[in-house]
């Protein structure tokens, strides 16, 4: 995606750039209403962008959406199957469309997910419906999986089962996955690339290891009257009495040294979870937006 814009009455997707290399799993994280679903629907050609270029698997979108969708498996939290029909009917329907439908794999997934093909969708629990939806897209072996909040509303066991299956699927290196969620734990488990989106803008995008390596929280004790300097790579500096916490987005070993030179005593350097990094990044982005 390059420079993609889409304007609604109360929301704007602004200049979105997004790259997903083949064989990678990208976690697409954003708060509710950030623009994740709009971005994904533009990617699938379901919503047409006002400006910008979108290419998916070598196809220009939305003009070549039909050709692109042969190789895309899409599941979203608000997607439903036909309630009055059985899972087996859905499987036959999808198999009749996709020549690459893998019957053996479908049966393996049926067993692994504990699903019964004769059961009507109406009688399935939410978790079973999500699993059924995933079965229908995984067994057709798409080159790109686009999952829009697939684990929302699932119990921990069902979430674990689904994530485990996704990890297994992407062992095939030719397959790419775009996984949107606000469950950062899920994304941290399976993704190798992370993109943050907030208020219709991509606020950061890089590989997961870089995020986890670069972000640190430095806890310090500061003598009264000492004012800590603003150092490069620090996105937030909170000072409360004698205690200070600096959040670094580009942590370097000389950072604690610089603070100690300024009079602080570094107590601890902590790694940050993806959720903490995400929250810090969103806050930083919103502050920058407010001051701009």
């Amino acid at each position: 995606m390059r420079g993609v814009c889409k304007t609604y009455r109360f929301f704007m997707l602004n200049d979105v750039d997004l790259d997903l290399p083949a064989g990678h799993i990208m976690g697409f994280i954003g708060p509710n209403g950030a623009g994740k679903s709009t971005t994904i629907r533009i990617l699938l050609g379901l919503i047409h962008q006002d400006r910008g270029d979108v290419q998916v698997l070598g196809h220009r979108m939305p003009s070549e959406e039909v050709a692109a969708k042969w190789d895309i498996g899409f599941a979203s939290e608000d997607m439903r199957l036909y309630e009055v029909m059985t899972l087996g009917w859905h499987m036959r329907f999808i198999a009749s469309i996709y020549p690459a439908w893998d019957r053996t794999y479908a049966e393996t997934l049926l067993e692994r997910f504990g699903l019964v093909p004769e059961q009507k969708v109406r009688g399935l629990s939410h978790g079973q419906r999500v699993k059924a939806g995933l079965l229908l897209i995984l067994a057709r072996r798409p080159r790109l999986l686009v999952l829009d909040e697939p684990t929302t509303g699932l119990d921990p066991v069902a979430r674990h089962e689904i994530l485990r299956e996704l990890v297994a699927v992407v062992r095939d290196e030719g397959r790419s996955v775009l996984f949107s969620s606000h469950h950062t734990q899920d994304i941290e488990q399976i993704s190798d690339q992370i993109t943050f989106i907030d208020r219709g803008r991509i606020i950061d995008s890089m590989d997961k290891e870089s995020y986890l390596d670069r972000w640190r929280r430095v806890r310090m004790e500061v003598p009264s009257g000492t004012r800590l300097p603003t150092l490069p790579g620090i996105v937030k500096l909170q000072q409360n009495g004698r205690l200070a916490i600096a959040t670094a987005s580009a942590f370097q070993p000389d950072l604690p040294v610089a603070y100690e030179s300024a009079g602080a005593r570094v107590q601890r350097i902590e790694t940050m979870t993806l959720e903490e990094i995400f929250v810090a990044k969103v806050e930083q982005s919103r502050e920058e937006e407010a001051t701009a």
Partner: protein
Amino acid sequence: MNSLIPALIRKDLQMTWVFPVLAVATGCGALALFWFGSQPVSISGMVAFFIVLVMLGVTPNVLIMNERKKQTLAFVMSLPVSGSQYALAKLAAAFGMFFVPWLLLIALALLLIVSTSEMPNGVIPLFFALALLPLIGFLVTTSVAIVAESDTWSNVTMGAVNISYSFVWISVMAVPGLLADVGSPVPVWNETILTALGIEFGVIATIFGSTLYLQSRKRDFI
């Protein structure tokens, strides 16, 4: 790759075949009343027959609205299909749901008219012109359901179309040329009848064309 339109049509027909079957059964019952009943019962049968034709036009509309209401639209649109292809498939499936039973019932009714000596065959052109009205009503409601994607607009259109039948039928019956030859022992396709049929077929073609055109210009499908 092949177009998915036939698969989508088959899917819709598999899920909704019971409605047209019920309509044909009810329509046959109405025709039986018309055929075997005394005069008041016979008139009731004729009225019931036209009600079945009108109701036949409403059921496919529900099929389209349900796709959005029951959130299955995202599932269909995730398949290799464009918005225009989806509309064409929906229109074709809805048309099939309406047209096959409609044609069957019209054919049965015509057979009854031809085989009875009590009703002159001159009524056939008028019957045909009147029977096309539910087809137009069906196309209007179906097109609005596809294009507007709104329950409110669909329901308002459905209500307006159903209410308008009585006015339209009364207006049509008031056209002198349409009734001129109903007493004739053979069907007479006079100029007024042919003009009325021409207008009806023109309206049908316009609705089809404008639905596909408007759908192809849509930018957001979900």
